[in-house]
């Protein structure tokens, strides 16, 4: 259960209020801003939260603030808002995936479409897994909850249910950034080098770790121990390279790259295939043989047709000589006829 809702120490709350208001900045507006369900970019919605609106619910939250302050620098506090419109137009889903890589204050809300605002006696429940959450912010047509996430255990699916004549449901999935591996295997050859790359898009991990699968378990790759076999290189903040030298058949298999974020870890899968040099050699030799056969066929056909032509030409010559002889005996008239023909 998220610690957001356990209440303690009101005195500390006053002290904190004083500190924050002294540090300046305008109080944040907790009322839900109207956004499209399609606007789900966390980065674009980040607001610097430096003050507290007194209308925010309960003493529970201050404890969270305190914990947050002790865990990170004040200036790093990020605040994001997400909203789902219910009952939802066909086409837009009533689920949203929210990616968080670091401790965040987050507000989730379900807004009722204006067309349905006439519905009275709506019962709204917020749930996290099976647990029901209290302390719902209610405004005119929307119901929201504020959360502080700083731990992996706080991630998961938060859902709101609006029960009236019909039931409307919306879910927010809070998760760490996903790392994509490669679906297609990387093909390499024995004795060669293989380079495997993992990238994180948009979020910078704090650490990268590589694992290889040995049977059914994953074994971490220690590149300092086996420096002439593995080389792990963090090319940039978001990219890591694993170079495997002197490949053998045993290196064939599945590898995992794990990115560590503040809020948890995420893995990407890569496959390595190690082939022997014989594998491409067979098609190569087959094609070369085919080419040789074709070239031979073409040349043989040419020799054959030349022989035929020569025979035909010899015969023709013979005929022409015969004709010339007969012409000479027939006179000039025949030759002029032949001219005109051609």
């Amino acid at each position, binding site marked *: 259960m998220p610690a957001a809702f356990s209440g303690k120490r009101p005195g500390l709350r006053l002290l904190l209020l004083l500190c924050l208001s002294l540090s300046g900045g305008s109080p944040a507006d907790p009322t839900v801003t109207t956004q499209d369900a399609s606007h789900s970019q966390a980065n674009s919605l980040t607001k610097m939260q430096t003050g507290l609106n007194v209308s925010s619910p309960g003493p529970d939250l201050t404890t969270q603030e305190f914990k947050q302050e002790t865990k990170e620098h004040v200036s790093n506090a990020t605040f994001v808002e997400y909203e789902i419109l219910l009952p939802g137009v066909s086409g837009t889903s009533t689920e949203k995936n929210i990616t968080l890589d670091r401790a965040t204050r987050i507000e989730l809300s379900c807004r009722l479409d204006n067309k349905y605002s006439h519905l009275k006696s709506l019962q709204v429940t917020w749930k996290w897994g099976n647990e029901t959450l209290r302390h719902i912010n209610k405004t005119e047509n929307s119901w929201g909850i504020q959360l502080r996430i700083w731990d992996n255990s706080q991630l998961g699916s938060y859902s709101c249910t609006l029960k009236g004549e019909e039931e409307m449901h919306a879910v927010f999935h809070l998760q760490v950034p996903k790392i994509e591996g490669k679906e297609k295997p990387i093909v390499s*050859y024995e004795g060669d080098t293989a380079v495997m790359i993992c990238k994180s898009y948009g979020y910078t991990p704090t650490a990268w770790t590589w694992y290889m699968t040995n049977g059914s378990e994953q074994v971490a790759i220690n590149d300092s121990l086996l420096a002439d076999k593995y080389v792990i290189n963090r090319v940039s903040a978001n990219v890591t390279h694993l170079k495997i030298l002197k490949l053998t058949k045993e290196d064939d298999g599945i590898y995992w790259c794990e990115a560590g974020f503040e809020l948890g870890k995420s893995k990407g899968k890569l496959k390595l295939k190690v082939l022997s040099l014989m594998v*491409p050699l067979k098609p190569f030799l087959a094609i070369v043989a085919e080419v040789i056969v*074709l*070239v031979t066929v073409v040349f043989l056909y040419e020799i054959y047709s030349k022989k035929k032509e020569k025979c035909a030409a010899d015969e023709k010559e013979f005929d022409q000589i015969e004709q010339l002889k007969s012409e000479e005996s027939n006179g000039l008239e025949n030759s002029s006829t032949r001219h005109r023909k051609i």
Partner: protein
Amino acid sequence: MPPLANAGQAPGPPDGGWGWAVVCGAFVSIGFAYAFPKGLAIFFKEIQDFFGTSYSEVAWVSSIMLATTYGAGPISSILVNRYGSRPVVIFGGLLCGIGMVSAAFCTSILQLYICVGFITGFGLALNLQPSVIIIGKYFLKRRPIANGLAMAGSPVMLCTLAPLNQFLFDNFGWRGSFLILGAILLHCCVAGALFRPIGAPTPPVKPQVTGKGKDALKEEVTEDAMEMGSPTKVPMEDKVEEEGGKACCEKINQYLDFSLFKHRGFLIYLIGNVLMFLGFFAPIVFLAPYAKHIGIDEYSAAFLLSILAIVDMIARPTTGIIANSKWVRPQIQYFFSFSIAFNGTCHLLCPLASGYTGLVIYAIFFGLAFGMVCAMLFETLMDLVGAARFTSAVGLVTIAECCTILLGPPIGGTLIDTFGDYKYMFIKCGAVMVLAGTFLFIMNYYNYRMLAKEEKERKAKEENPKPVRTENEGRNSWNKETTRDGPELEPLSKEQEGLKEEVNGINEV
């Protein structure tokens, strides 16, 4: 179906028969030469990761290959002039194979530049030029169709190579793929085997030769060691003593005909084409990135290129058939200029295309225009300089085009980077091509008029009882005869005259 073949010796281009087998060979050869550098792009990502280089360093491989293929044109021409098409193409095929097989064992990007870039590029150059040349030797009346069909090899090979390369890469990695591609490139040798040598298409000046007797004629025709690529060789053999002074220049010209630079038609073609190539390839290179830029997903963007290739495939032979029709053939240069200008207009209108449908329409028209231009690219050159000097002409043209071909996409890229907008690149390409088309149109109009004038003068001269043909057959009169190859009706009637003389020759003996 050889129309004038039955007279016996050197009947003129067969325009059929074995010529169609030659077209098949040229189809394969030209296809590999144009499509192979583009098809390699699939491997670049993996090679870039493997060697740890930047994308531009890997893209150099393709650029070097393209540059070598075009830049080695003159060398190719010299070799064809000396040895004929067949040995050159077979050697080129072997070179390509060796290049790619050695590339499979490379351990640095520099070695890739040499193996894939230079060696394979040079092999492809030795494939491209001779294939185009031999079509001119086998066809005259149906030459545009033959050219259109042979040039259709490029999009067909590209459509075949792209998925094939992907399949090879998925199963064998880049090293295994290069090995197998080396074997596939050996099929150029098969194409070369089909290029049977043939005698000169237009009978060189006969009366002096027939003086030697029938045997000499027969010897020339059945000689298959060397094609009579350069007609100047025949008259030269007769008067080596007379022209001792010019022997050196003529010897160079025998290998590579630099006197083409005095040829009006050739110069027009050269300037127009060099200008056109500045804007020719850039739109293809940037079509997919542009589509992604305006929000289209990767697969649909790739599909645009497929549409382009398919339309291109159909457009090339069709253009060949249209160009061969009796209305278009005499004015083929105008048709060529029109297709270039049409191409340019497509690019100028592209920025107006909004959304995927607009781009699909653009891709269709672009494919059509691209195919039209490519189908007639070499046909118009043959039409201007004649089949005899085409060997040297194509070499000189390709090396001149080489510079602008290489400059085109980078200039486009710079425009895109500077302005952050693709439309300026399209406008630049469109403007350059419309300019080139207009230039060619005007200059060819002028050229046709000059040719008509020269034709009138020649006819006037012939009416005087001066025997033009038995005179000193130096380069000058031969030049005149070949420049008259412009309007295609001329050589046809010339052939008939030549034939009459042959028949006379036979009867004399």
